């Protein structure tokens, strides 16, 4: 029989697999960096400076993506840079998600004073200009990987909180929540077994989005030298360096930029793909 709502079937396959594949590549690069990087990312050799990548004339074998002005291998630096990107994405993403979602769920479900306090907190917090806040934080804590992660968490948890709260409020109106009350569930159990599964799609979507944002924020901070110390290579740092010599060696900027783009895109698509594949309502 024909239902008024006609679900459009999505091709769950492509989106999920492609994005997962790229992220797997990044993860492997990060984990196995010392084993797979062809050169030491910090080793400088001025005689081999600004070598083009292997598909352009004038390259040297062994430096697949070329070298930068100090003779450091671009590919190796990218592989090591993946470490920073991934750590930031996972640490900042997951922590922001946990804090923001927990507060959002509590505020949306329990209402009353919990909601009022969390609401005020979010409003006041969001009144601080985020970029200034991040810079201030890092200035106080010193530039390091952990201060970058902390800065992202501190700024972005409110994003989760607001959205999760709204969705929780929505779901709390549903009769299946009343049904759980009638069945004698405790409120906590209702929150965890009835509401959480229905807020999960929103949380997962936000989480993957947040991971992409974290990678970009780190890149921006590197670009302005507020991220990890300049020794360890980061994609943002490479972009900053590459910008200076862009006419002579465009590859130093281009490749990390592409990697950044693909990674952020993959995080976002992963979220959609997971939802297509696993959300029972869409099947």
């Amino acid at each position, binding site marked *: 029989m024909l239902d008024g709502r006609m679900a459009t079937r999505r091709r769950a396959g492509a989106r999920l697999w492609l994005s997962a594949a790229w992220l797997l590549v990044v993860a492997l690069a990060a984990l196995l960096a010392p084993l797979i990087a062809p050169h030491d990312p910090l080793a400088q050799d001025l005689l081999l400076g600004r070598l083009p990548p292997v598909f352009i004339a004038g390259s040297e074998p062994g430096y697949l993506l070329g070298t930068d002005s100090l003779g450091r291998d671009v590919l190796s630096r990218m592989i090591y840079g993946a470490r920073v990107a991934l750590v930031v994405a996972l640490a900042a993403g997951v922590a922001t998600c946990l804090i923001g979602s927990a507060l959002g769920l509590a505020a949306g479900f329990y209402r009353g004073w919990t909601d009022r306090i969390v609401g005020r907190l979010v409003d006041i917090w969001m009144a601080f200009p985020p970029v200034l806040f991040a810079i201030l934080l890092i200035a106080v804590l010193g530039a390091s990987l952990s201060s970058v992660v902390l800065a992202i968490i501190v700024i972005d948890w409110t994003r989760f909180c607001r959205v999760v709260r709204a969705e929780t409020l929505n779901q709390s109106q549903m009769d*299946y929540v009343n049904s759980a009350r009638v069945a004698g569930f405790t409120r906590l159990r209702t929150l965890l077994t009835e509401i959480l*599964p229905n807020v999960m799609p929103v949380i997962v979507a936000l989480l993957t989005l947040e991971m992409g944002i974290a990678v970009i924020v780190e890149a921006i901070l590197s670009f302005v030298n507020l991220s990890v110390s300049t020794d360890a290579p980061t994609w943002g740092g490479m972009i900053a360096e590459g910008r200076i010599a862009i006419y002579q060696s465009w590859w130093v900027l281009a490749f990390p930029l592409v990697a950044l783009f693909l990674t952020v895109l993959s995080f976002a698509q992963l979220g959609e793909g997971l939802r297509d594949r696993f959300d029972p309502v869409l099947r």
Partner: protein
Amino acid sequence: MAEAIFSIEDLQIEVPDMARKPLFGPAPRREILKGLSFEIARGSVLGIVGGSGSGKTTLGRALLRLMEPTGGRIVFDGQDITHLSDERLRPLRRRIQMIFQDPMSSLNPRLTVGRIVAAPLGARSSDPRIAEALDQVGLSRAFAGRYPHEISGGQRQRVGIARAIAMRPDFILADEIVSGLDVSSQAQVLNLLERLVAELGLTLAFISHDLSVIRRLCGRVIVMQAGAIVEDAPTATLFDSPAHPYTRELLDAIPTPDPSVRW
């Protein structure tokens, strides 16, 4: 006369009227239920009829203690439950169950039918009681693995019934459960309820805005208007000689499948 499973005395519910709240100070109170008194005999089927705004849904929620009365008493099986806390109510919950109007929002869309029916029992969906409940409502066991959006409206409503009866309650409140169903599904659900009431010895309160479905199922009917009970009578009496003008208006408004009387 059978003993009363529910005894309602002068039940009042007021809520703050947020639409009229002044900038400073509390909102004025709006009376939704204005002092209702009636009894529900054990093993009977009571019809609760009224239009929107009559308070019938609020009454239903009050009976299930989903709302706390602001006045009066609700006595369930000899026990005063009017102001019991959630904690103290919990052991009683198993005995007072409800079936909701909109099967789409009353079934958790991300749980399978089996888990939905099993959850209030604290059981797994493989528990035999689940299969038994599904059998009793005429759904095959295969339904346990399906999701609410994969089955029809009538079937979803039957899942709601299965969930309610699986707990072997004493009393069930059915809140407009056939309003959105077409005529054939409606007939199936009503016949099912009739059978279950007889087989399981249930007491049933059936809320509806449609008197035509009430006649078959209910032994007694209370008619509500604007938060008060305007008529409380056995079904036959109500239909044959309605006392209150509003009751007559409701009866009159039913479109009978008889083309000789036109509107």
